[in-house]
């Protein structure tokens, strides 16, 4: 069994309520932070822990906190990004649903460290019941003196507000989230200025993922240095992985980032192998927007080394032969899955979710979807593959926010690694409508140059 920091108590009956959470040692860390620690000390512990943002980009959280501007007389805000909409990712929902008080405790400590008196949880609209759970937990926490005015006699005021989004993927982007929170259309802002300088209502703001803020609790509890000992290299601590797809045991798992990808998929403790005794074909290891990898490159890096479930190892080889940790949405595809169809599904999602603000993303995502649709329906031409490649290349890096990149990467990776499957679709138009390309050589050991 790996180390469990976040989900340790998730299976305790009634942990969702304040009484049980408190009895299990909850809010003791907040008490320690507010009574014994200075603001600087808390930030220092988070920095020492090496905690990286769990939302997808993996930016060091302590560094993000230290960027926040502190002008005199201007309120600062902490916003919790619970707009978890990346296809394949559902770890935050699990955390909030079962351990709402853990998040609130993390929010309290973080708000204290950042000086945020009004902290917001921006939760996606589809998580309606989770929002209810959070609101209930906030009422309980307020009743017991953990939120509100003069918390623990420390003089610090903090209120947490739950804001329900309307279900737009783009509102998970931090500046779009801020716009939406302000009551405007959820269009990403042009950066700079960054939220740390001018965020919510033009005030300094930090936006962090649910898991990041929850991880602040074990960090303060055990100390940043101890936390940094878990994991490997710059991938410190534990990470929640939401595994789904063709596996025996889909679900949310907490890993300590030293486990290999192969163990994660095949061990009984985690995914329990591929469902139905089939073979692994491909995997999207970090949520829909990260590059897809074929089985051989997923389990071993291009150099022939074992690939591990951590930030560095998953991105080993760059985009040519690697992928990304992303948000931890681990999507496994077995040998019966069609990569063209899978890519089309993702492209359709991004077309539907593009905010339409900047032209490459607005027009390019729709174009890619239509070409993929054409190939999928057996009407593709060989020039379409190169056209797709050209379009994704022209979207990537030329847009306001990362949604353009997120739309381009899956298409690029699918063509990069599965070009022969696309070609098979185009060359066998009728056959491709009734049968599948299958596993082919995607699990064959890769040739490692000496």
């Amino acid at each position, binding site marked *: 069994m790996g180390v469990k920091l976040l989900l340790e108590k998730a299976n305790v009956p009634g942990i969702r309520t304040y009484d049980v959470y408190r009895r299990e040692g909850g809010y003791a860390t907040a008490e320690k932070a507010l009574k014994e620690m200075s603001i600087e000390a808390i930030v220092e512990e988070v920095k020492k822990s090496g905690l990286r943002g769990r939302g997808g980009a993996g930016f060091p959280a302590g560094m993000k906190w230290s960027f926040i501007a502190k002008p005199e007389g201007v309120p600062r805000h902490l916003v919790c990004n619970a707009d978890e909409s990346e296809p394949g990712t559902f770890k935050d929902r699990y955390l909030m649903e079962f351990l709402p008080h853990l998040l609130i405790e993390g929010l309290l400590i973080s708000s204290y460290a950042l000086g945020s008196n009004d902290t917001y949880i921006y939760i996606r609209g589809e998580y309606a019941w989770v929002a209810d759970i959070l609101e209930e937990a906030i009422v309980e926490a307020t009743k017991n003196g953990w939120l509100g005015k003069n918390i623990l006699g420390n003089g610090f005021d903090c209120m947490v507000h739950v804001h329900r989004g309307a279900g737009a993927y783009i509102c998970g982007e931090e500046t779009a989230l801020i716009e939406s929170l302000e009551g405007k259309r959820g269009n990403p802002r042009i950066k700079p200025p960054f939220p740390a300088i001018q965020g919510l209502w033009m005030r300094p703001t930090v936006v962090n993922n649910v898991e990041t803020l929850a991880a602040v609790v074990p960090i303060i509890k055990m100390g940043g240095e101890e936390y940094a000992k878990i994991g490997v290299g710059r991938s410190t601590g534990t990470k929640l992985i939401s595994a789904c797809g063709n596996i025996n045991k889909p679900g949310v798992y907490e890993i300590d980032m030293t486990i290999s990808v192969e163990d994660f998929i095949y061990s009984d403790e985690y995914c329990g192998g591929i469902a139905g005794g089939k073979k692994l074909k491909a995997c999207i290891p970090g949520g829909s927007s990260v590059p897809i990898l074929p089985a051989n490159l997923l389990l071993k890096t291009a150099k022939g080394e074992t690939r591990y479930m951590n930030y560095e190892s998953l991105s080993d080889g760059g985009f040519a032969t690697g992928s990304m940790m992303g948000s931890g949405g681990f999507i496994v595809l077995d040998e019966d899955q069609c990569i063209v169809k899978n890519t089309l599904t993702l492209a359709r999602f991004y077309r539907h*979710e593009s905010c339409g603000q*900047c032209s490459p993303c607005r027009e390019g995502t729709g174009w890619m979807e239509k070409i993929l649709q054409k190939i999928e329906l057996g009407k593709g031409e060989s020039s379409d593959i190169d056209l797709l490649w050209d379009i994704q290349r022209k979207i990537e890096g*030329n847009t306001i926010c990362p949604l353009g990149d997120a739309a381009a990467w899956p298409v690029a990776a699918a063509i990069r690694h599965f070009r022969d499957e696309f070609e098979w679709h185009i060359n066998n138009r009728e056959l491709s409508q009734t049968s599948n390309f299958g596993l082919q050589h995607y699990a064959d050991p890769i040739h490692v140059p000496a």
Partner: protein
Amino acid sequence: MSEQTLFKVTVDNITIEVPAGTTILQAARQIGGAVAPPAMCYYSKLEGSGGKCRTCLVEVSKGSEKDPRPMPKLVASCRTTVMDGMEVKNITSEKVIDARAAVVEFLLLNHPLDCPICDQAGECHLQDLSFEHGKAGTRYEFQRRTFKKHDLGKHIQLHMTRCILCYRCVFTADQLTNKREHGILDRGDHAEIATHIEKSLDNEFIGNVIDVCPVGALTDKTFRFKNRVWFLKPMDAHRNCPTCSGRVTLWNRGDEVFRVTARKDEWGEIEDTLEGKPGWICNTCRFEKKNTNDWIIEGPRAISRQSVIAQGHYAGNIGTTLPTETFKAVNDGRAPHLLMDIHNESEVNLPSVRLSETDGPSHGNTFNNNSTNA
């Protein structure tokens, strides 16, 4: 202004000094010529505009004197401020040329290319952009998105199919009028400019959305299909208007005023008034004063020789000189195909006809007879 910090910035190997806080685009415009990146959504008179169309992307090859690292991605020059010692590559960068061609292609994907029947043709920024940076053909083979035309009130028609979603009209309504009644509905490639629901835009200054629209999405209903802009002669004029500056450009043919617009500078933006404020004009000036008697005419408006509008055949008695070069000659031997086709094929476009010398408004007969003037 002397104590203002000046930053040295180099665009395409030309160095100038600009005050701190200037954007790369504004600095490049001060240099002028081909160095200035094109801008479809940025409008210097509108706060918050820009950053959306991505046509003004440039490469920053040196961040500043202090931090010489290049910026990893192309940046939107309209929203990036200069740093001291910054080096920017615009037309000297392969990456920029490539990205710009891509953006033009993206912008034209769902554009109907109905220039022959579009009122904006001849003064359309998208036309200029695709002429300069685009390709002759398209690789798009699917159905384009279309919308119904909508009347936004008495004077403005919205033809959403042509829109490139630059948001300029939204900013205009936000910043010029008391209550914005239109905005963007929906998202992605089905996003549209609309009022909710079918409201009419009713504000004394709302007509300015026509002037800021870079394409033919918002058109003046008092001018629709009345004339091609290159057959009209633009004249600077003013009147004593109680609501606005009253400084306008009249677009005449003979003695008839076909339309009234605000005065636009070489970047297609509203010129400043004498007091240095943006010269927005009111609806009364724009839509209702269509009589030469209403105006005090200052003289002909200078139009860039590169513009097709400069092809209007007027010369002599109003002080302008007829250009002797052909359109091709001033554009390095390239002819804008679509425009020149209309221009050459149209029977009303006889070089021998001098509009300024005809009596009163010109009509089809003036051209058909081919005998009025030599």
